[in-house]
C-alpha cells in the first residue's frame, strides 16, 4: 500500500518537473506548446550520449542536461516561438506539432530509433525496507531532486524579484510593460528554465519512462493532463495534479489492473466537469 504511494509519488514528481514549464508557458504566454515533450526528450538524449558514449558521470550529466535543454529552449524561443505568441491557439498547435515531427525524425536520424538506456551508478539500484515500505534508491533520488526543485520553484515565484515580475507579466503583460518590466526577457528566461526542467525530467525519467524518438508524443498527453487538471495558476496546481495523477495511475494499475488505463482518464473527466479551469484556477481565469 505505502509502497504504491511511494512509487506514485516518484512518478508524479517526475511528471511535475517535466510539465511545470508547460504550465507556465501556457499561463504566462498563453502559448499552447505541444513540443514541450521534445525538450524533455532532448534532455534524455543528451544524458544518454554523455553518460554512455563519453563516459561522463551520471550526476555530472544531469545539470548538463538541464543546461543543454535550456539553451535549446532559449534559442528556439528567441528565433521561432517569439513569432507565434500572437498567433491563434490553432496555429500554435500546428507550429509545435511541426517541431515535434522534426525532433522525432531528427533524433531517429542522429541516434537511431531504438530504446536508449542510461548507465546508472550501481548504488541507485539499491532498495531499502523502511517500516515495511520498500523504497528504491532511484525513486528516492527522483523524489528528492524533484521535491527540492518544486520547493525552489515555489519560493522563486513567490519570493524573488524575478518571481514578482513573472507574476505581474502573467496577470497583465500590458501593465507589466508599462511598469518597466522587460516582459520579453521574462518570457525568454521562463521559457528557457521550463525547457531546462523538462530536459532534466527527461534525463531522470528515461530509466522509468523509457527513451525513444516517439517520447514527445507518448507523454505529451500526460503533460497536458497535469496542466489541465492543475490549472495554470502558480506552481501548486500542477504539483498537486501531477502527484494525484502519478498516485492514481500506479494505484489503479495495482488494484484494478484490468481497468488500468481507464482510471486516470475517467478521473480527469470528472475533475474537469467539476472544475473546468482546473483545480487551482487563476481568479476569474480564462
Amino acid at each position, binding site marked *: 500500500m505505502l*509502497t*504504491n504511494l511511494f*512509487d506514485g509519488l516518484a*512518478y508524479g514528481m517526475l511528471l511535475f518537473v517535466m510539465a511545470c514549464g508547460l504550465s507556465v508557458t501556457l499561463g504566462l504566454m498563453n502559448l499552447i506548446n505541444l513540443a514541450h515533450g521534445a525538450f524533455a526528450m532532448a534532455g534524455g538524449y543528451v544524458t544518454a550520449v554523455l553518460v*554512455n558514449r563519453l563516459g561522463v558521470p551520471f550526476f555530472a550529466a544531469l545539470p548538463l542536461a538541464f543546461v543543454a535543454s535550456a539553451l535549446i529552449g532559449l534559442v528556439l524561443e528567441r528565433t521561432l516561438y517569439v513569432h507565434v505568441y500572437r498567433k491563434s491557439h490553432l496555429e500554435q498547435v500546428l507550429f509545435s506539432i511541426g517541431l515535434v515531427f522534426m525532433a*522525432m*525524425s531528427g533524433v*531517429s536520424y542522429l541516434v*537511431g*530509433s*531504438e*530504446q*536508449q*538506456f542510461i*548507465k546508472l551508478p550501481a548504488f541507485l*539500484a539499491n*532498495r531499502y525496507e523502511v517500516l515495511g515500505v*520498500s523504497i*528504491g534508491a*532511484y525513486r528516492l533520488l527522483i523524489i528528492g531532486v524533484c521535491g527540492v526543485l518544486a520547493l525552489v520553484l515555489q519560493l522563486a515565484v513567490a519570493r524573488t524579484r524575478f518571481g514578482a515580475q513573472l507574476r505581474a507579466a502573467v496577470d497583465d503583460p500590458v501593465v507589466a510593460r508599462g511598469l518597466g518590466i522587460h516582459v520579453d526577457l521574462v518570457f525568454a528566461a521562463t521559457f528557457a528554465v521550463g525547457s531546462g526542467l523538462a530536459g532534466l525530467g527527461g534525463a531522470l525519467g528515461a*530509466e*522509468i*519512462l*523509457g527513451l*525513444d*524518438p*516517439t517520447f514527445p508524443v*507518448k*507523454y505529451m498527453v*500526460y503533460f497536458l493532463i497535469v496542466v489541465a487538471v492543475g490549472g495554470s495558476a502558480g506552481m501548486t496546481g500542477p504539483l498537486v495534479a501531477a502527484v494525484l495523477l502519478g498516485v492514481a*495511475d*500506479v*494505484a*489503479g*494499475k*495495482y488494484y484494478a*489492473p*484490468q481497468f*488500468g*488505463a481507464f482510471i486516470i482518464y475517467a478521473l480527469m473527466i470528472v475533475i474537469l466537469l467539476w472544475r473546468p479551469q482546473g483545480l487551482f484556477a487563476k481568479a476569474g481565469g480564462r
Partner: protein
Amino acid sequence: MKNLLAAASLLAALIGPAVSPAAAEDAFKIGLILPMTGPSQSTGKQINAAVKLFMQQNGDEVAGRKVEIILRDDAGVADTTRRVAQELVVKDHVSVLAGFGLTPLALATAPIATQAKVPMVVMAAATSVITEKSPFIVRTAQVMPQVASTMGTWTAGQGIKKVVTIVTDYGPGIDAETWFVKNFQAAGGEIQSSLRVPLANPDFAPFLQRVRDAQPDAVFVFTPSGQGAAFIKQFIERGLDKSGIRLIALGDVTDDDQLNAMGDATLGVVTAGPYSAAHPGAVNAKFVAAFKAANSDLRPNFMAVFGYDGMQAIYDAIKKTNGKGDGSALIEAMKGAAWESPRGPMQIDAKTRDIIQDVYLRKVEKKDGELYNIEFGSVPKVRDPAKPE
C-alpha cells in the same frame, strides 16, 4: 479563401499525372511495407537493413530478373498498410508483398493478397491466426505459440511450480500468455495470476508490486521489444531477483538490438526465442559481421533475421519458377522450402505456410565484454501448436 479553393482544385487536377508511375518495366518488384515511423519504427529499420544486406550479398538479379524493392512506410496504421499494399499491387504491379510489422497490419492486408493473388511474406507479425487468413500468406518470422509453448514446457521441467504471467495486452501478448499457460499447466504447473499490461504503459511498478506480493517461483514475461529493458530494470530495482523469483521471458524481451544497453541487470535472464546473434555457426557469423559492418555496428536482432529469411524465401521461389511464375506459382514454390538460416535450420510448412524452426533456450551472459543471449538448449523443428498437424 476563394483563391485557396482555386489553387487546391488546380493542384488536384495537376498532381495526379505528375506522380503516375512510369510504365512497368520487367523488374521483379517486391513491395516492402514496414513501420518506418511511429512506435514500431525500430522493427522497420532492422528489417529494412537486413533486406538491403541480403540484396547486397546475393545480387539484385535472380533467374534473369532484376529484383527491385519498393519500400513504403505505414507508420503501424492498419488502414494505411492496406491502402499502400493495394497501391503497390494495382499501380506498381509488385509480384510480392512483404514486411508487416504488427498483427493487425497483416490481417488488414490479407484480403488484398487473396484478391490479387499476390504472395504476402510476413516478416514480423507473430500472431498464429495470420497465415489462415489467406492462402497467399507465408511467414518467415516466428509464431508466438511456437515459442511460448516451448517455454511453458521447459519451465515446468525446471521444478518451477508457481508462476505469475505478465504480458502486454495485445494480440501477440495474449497468444503468448495462452500458450505458455496451456503447456505449463499441462506439465503440472500452477498459474497464480495472469496480468496484462496496457500497450501504452509508462510504468511497470504496480504490476511488479503485485508479483512481489504473490511471491511466485518465477514470473513469465512477454513485452514487445523495447519495453523489456524497463521491465527487467524495475524487476531488479524492486529486489525481486533477490527474493528468489526467477525471471523467464520470450526472446523479444532481451532483444539483441538493445541487450548491451540494457546493462548487467539482464544477466541470467532465461528466454526462449528463435534467434540469437550469438548463435554458433558460420552462416550466422558471416551474417552478423556483414550486418554490423553495413549499419555502423548495430547488432542484428531477430527481426533482422526474419526479414533476411523472407528475402531468402522470395529469391528461392523466383529461382524455382525461373523468374516466370505468377503469384500462385511463387506460393507453391515457397511451400515446403527449407534452408540454413543464420538462426539455424528452418522450413516453411507445406501445409500451413507457417514457419517450422528450432526454438532455443538462452541465458543472458557476457561474452567478449558484451551481453548476449547464449543458447543452452533447443527444441528442434517446432511447428505452430495452434494449427492442426
